[in-house]
């Protein structure tokens, strides 16, 4: 059955207490576990143990991107495919990678990012009962997005990396921004019939552009912007609309300098939907539809 969706991201932060305070009180995630130099967080509506892990490090950036697999047999299938494509895999037993982790295949892909393919992460339940539940819990703080949505990474060879994720992991291309020289500047890839679960933008290998969380609607983006501004969190861009994906987004930075997004909207993508192509001349509208231009900070700042 393959990759179901984005499972989690592990990010580096130099100040674990500050980062935890930010992610629980401003973003409004829930702390589910704490280990030596690691804090595990989830969104309120997620059933699984974590969707974000903060790892203490003297720097910032992305340690691991995790993908949820639909079936246990996918672990072997993907190991064979990834190794056939020339990348080494390492297998971890359930729990071996700490805090609620499932059975995992870990590999470093062509973009230099460490990917975990995970089956069977511990389920802790969302914050609602399974009998006669209200639609949402009361008393949540901060933005409190419902769930993780997608991740945006950087790499030098967007064409080659995109091919890897399409051919080896069965991601489907929904949109692309193509440079005047014919190379892909940005690609948007999905497994969930949404506009994107994963995107790559031209930049240094291992670069981390942002991780995005889902909110219900445009009004929630307004509330999120109020919350960021109230807490003195630096807003990078938005609230605005994306041309690519048709979603609405608000970008801001965590205290370590990792970029976050809250996102909503988009469309349903059938597996046979023909990809949308944006030209370099229209890149401004593709990224920020209302402004029509992309600022340098958005293109160059990453972690």
């Amino acid at each position, binding site marked *: 059955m393959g990759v179901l969706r984005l499972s989690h991201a592990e990010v580096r932060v130099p100040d674990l207490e500050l980062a935890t305070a930010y992610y629980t009180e401003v973003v409004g995630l829930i702390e589910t576990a704490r280990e030596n130099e690691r804090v595990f967080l989830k969104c309120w509506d997620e059933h699984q143990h974590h969707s974000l892990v903060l790892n203490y490090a003297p720097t910032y950036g992305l340690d691991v991107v995790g993908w*949820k697999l639909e079936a246990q047999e996918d672990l072997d299938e993907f190991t064979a495919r990834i190794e056939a494509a020339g990348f080494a895999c390492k297998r971890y037993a359930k729990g071996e990678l700490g805090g609620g982790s499932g059975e995992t295949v870990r590999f470093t892909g062509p973009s230099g990012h460490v990917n975990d393919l995970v089956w069977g992460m511990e389920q802790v339940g969302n914050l609602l009962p399974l009998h006669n539940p209200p639609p949402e819990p009361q008393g949540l703080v901060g933005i409190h997005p419902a769930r993780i949505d997608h991740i945006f990474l950087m790499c030098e060879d967007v064409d080659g990396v995109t091919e890897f994720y399409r051919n080896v992991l069965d991601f489907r291309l929904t949109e692309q921004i193509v440079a005047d020289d014919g190379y892909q500047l940005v690609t948007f890839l999905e497994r969930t019939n949404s506009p994107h679960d994963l995107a790559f933008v031209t930049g240094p290998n291992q670069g981390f552009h942002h991780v995005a969380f889902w909110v219900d609607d*445009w009004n929630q983006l307004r509330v999120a912007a109020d919350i960021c501004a109230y807490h003195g969190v630096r807003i990078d861009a938005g609230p605005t609309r994306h041309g690519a994906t048709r979603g609405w987004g608000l970008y801001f930075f965590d205290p370590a300098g990792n970029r976050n997004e809250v996102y909503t909207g988009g469309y349903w993508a059938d597996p046979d939907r023909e990809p949308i192509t944006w030209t370099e001349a229209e890149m401004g509208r593709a990224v920020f539809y209302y402004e029509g231009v992309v600022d340098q900070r958005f293109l160059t700042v990453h972690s």
Partner: protein
Amino acid sequence: MVARMGILRLSHVDITVPDLDLAAAYYTGVLGLLESERTDDRIFFKCWDEEDHHSLAVRYDPRVGIDRFSFKVEDEEDLEELETKVEEYGFRVHRVSRGEEVGQGASIRFETPSGHEMELVHDVEKVGGLLGKFNPGAIPVGMQGIAPPRMDHLLINAEEVGVATRFYMDVLGFRLTEQLIGSDGHQIGTWLERSHTPHDIAVVNGPNGALHHFAYWLDDWDHVRQAADILAYNSIQIDVGPTRHGVTRGNTIYFFDPMGTRNEVFTGGYRPDPDFPTITWTEDNIGRAVFYYEGEVNERFIKVHT
């Protein structure tokens, strides 16, 4: 990979109407669908963001009702596999050849335990969305009416909800997200999905073969408010809402087309993984389960179907 993909999503609903011109005026002018084809006795409609030929077909008949509902499968091979499973379950499958049906290729049709004709199809004619594939705008400008981007789900009636539900789960691979359990322990309502949404089809207690409603997706609650304004402006009878469901957590309005078929506009919900634990509602909470703000279900909503 290890298993076939199976059913992808709801493809189209085929209903009967006693007045084709009135149906066309309502579904294009008020609902804001696009007419994609017309034959002697049928009209085919699609939403602006749908790329397939149609998501609603209306056929002239003196009686209002439902001909069938159709789900799209991910691969052509799924049709054969599901045909075998349906026949093994004891239901006869009728094959529709390419060229027999408007806007689509080969399909299979069969009667379900709830007395509905169901269709599975893969090869649907692509007519494209309104935005194109090259530096597209974010929305089409100048649409009439509510203009939902796509169809979302349907709700059917069944005398034996439990039996109908087992068929959709065991034979067709639907997953149960929520259920409403009567005080006698039987299922009164079930919500089933294939598209990682709260529901693609739901079954509630009522006469076999009946349609309760079909629903269109809207972007958000603000779009739901605008839809209510458009319905009221056009003197369309609103059944319930705008309100919230306890089941599915979605926001909604129910209303009737001029011939009596119930429509819904819907937004919100959540994203259930295949291992999502089923939510159970008890009969004493039926009011909040169906209409979370009102806490009670009106008789019309329970009794009227087509």
